């Protein structure tokens, strides 16, 4: 599938908006939180994104933003006359009082620890994750230090 055709198909999915090409091989889009799981399943099964590169969590104050990067390794999407492989960047916005989203670690095992890290440092809860524990900070650590409103002195004694 050519990348332009792929972009046209993307717009027809539920919850998808603002599909844009930010580099010759990178597609960017915004996705609604409710439709995220269905979209991720079709991303893996129908379009062949085999590899989850990164999940980053951003504290935009007040809301949170999750940025997913997926890549094609041997998949079916290509760019004409170029050896480059395609990547997709997905932005999902979460409300501050409900920072939850469905986990994708059952689709891509590589997302497992990225989700654990987002939980550990930013306090995003991934529903259905098999093992949502802290990964970099020790167990029993209080708070999520990459949040912009984190103040160490408040949590110092708790920990």
């Amino acid at each position: 599938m050519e990348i332009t055709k792929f972009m046209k198909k993307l717009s027809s999915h539920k919850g998808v908006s603002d599909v844009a090409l930010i580099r010759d091989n990178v597609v960017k889009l915004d996705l609604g939180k409710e439709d995220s799981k269905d979209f991720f399943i079709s991303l893996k099964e129908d379009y062949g994104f085999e590899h989850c590169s990164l999940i980053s969590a951003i504290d935009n104050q007040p809301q949170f933003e999750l940025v997913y990067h997926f890549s094609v390794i041997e998949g079916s999407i290509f760019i004409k006359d170029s050896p480059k492989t395609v990547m997709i960047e997905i932005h999902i916005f979460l409300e501050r009082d409900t920072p939850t989203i469905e986990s994708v670690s059952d689709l891509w095992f590589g997302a497992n620890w990225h989700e654990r890290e987002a939980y550990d440092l930013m306090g995003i809860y991934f529903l259905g994750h098999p093992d949502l524990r802290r990964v970099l900070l020790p167990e029993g650590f209080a708070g999520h230090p990459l949040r912009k409103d984190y103040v160490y002195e408040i949590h110092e004694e708790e920990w």
Partner: protein
Amino acid sequence: MAEMWISMGPQHPMTHGLWTLKVKVDGETIVDADPELGYLHRSVEKMGERRKYFMNTTLTDRLCYASSTTWTHCYALSVEELMGVEVPQRAQYIRTIMLELQRLASHLMWAGAYMPDLGHITGALYFWRDRELFLNLLELPSGSRLLYNYIRIGGVKRDLPDGFEEKTERILKLFEQRLDEYADLFENSKIFRMRTEDVGNFTASQAMNLGITGPNLRGCGTKFDLRKQDSYEIYDEIDWEIQTREAGPGYGDCFSRYMVRIDEMKESVKIIRECFKKMPAGPTMASKVPIRASGDAFRRTEDSRGEALMYLVGDGSDRPYRWKIKSPMFTTISACPHYLKGYKVADIPSIMGSIDICIGETDK
């Protein structure tokens, strides 16, 4: 026999850095594993939010001491993408040379660390002797042995010193002879092959889903190298091949991962030679580098260990609002229960050594 958990690490000869591997064993056979990280967490991402963009190159150097130039380069590339800086042609060539020298040093570091894991202390001395040659080369333009801070946003710190090309050529020639020695010492060694062949197998489709990239994925026969597939600097102008292992008995095992890295070193030698041939004259730093940035951007590069990605968000000030680092080893270690299962306890050093662990980048 009853199953039980054994804890290896954080201080253990197998770990190559501070981390713990808990393995569940049934007699000698591994049933399950649970890796634990965080002993080396220095909160690089948080520190980066408090520093100006150009200050962070010192932090990125310290992500991995065995491969610091590649990490600084990934950061510089991402910031250049964010700010829209155009790097001069000569600087791109110098960067490519430095990256390939670093890749050679990093792969030699890995090979030297891998040999004692298999009980071959002599191998460590051989490989580290040659790594020193490349560290000397990297020291000439940058002035330090491990943490170079040579690649800067917009170019490189300074031009290459006089006589650098001749010195490099002399060392590359010597290194090529040494590679033949390695073939006799390791590839043709029966004991080495017994420890590595058909051990730690995984297939390409498994590896992609597990998030394994770099030489470990190419060892399964997948032609995926970001220097070609998401080309940066001048890799698309240079004639080189992605090194993989052909499908067949024992591919995707520890031995194939060893061979991919050896072949990659040969390819790096080729790339460095061609860079010197094609290198134009000119400035080595962009004439104007802004200090403020807004919006978001990311770039990914082929680190010595796999796919490195940095995602940056700017809010219009001179410091990054959010800086996210993707380390290839982070996901590779997370997948270790999948490729350890079914092997013996004695195979753990052989398998975990073969994937080239670096904890500095993993714990950030």
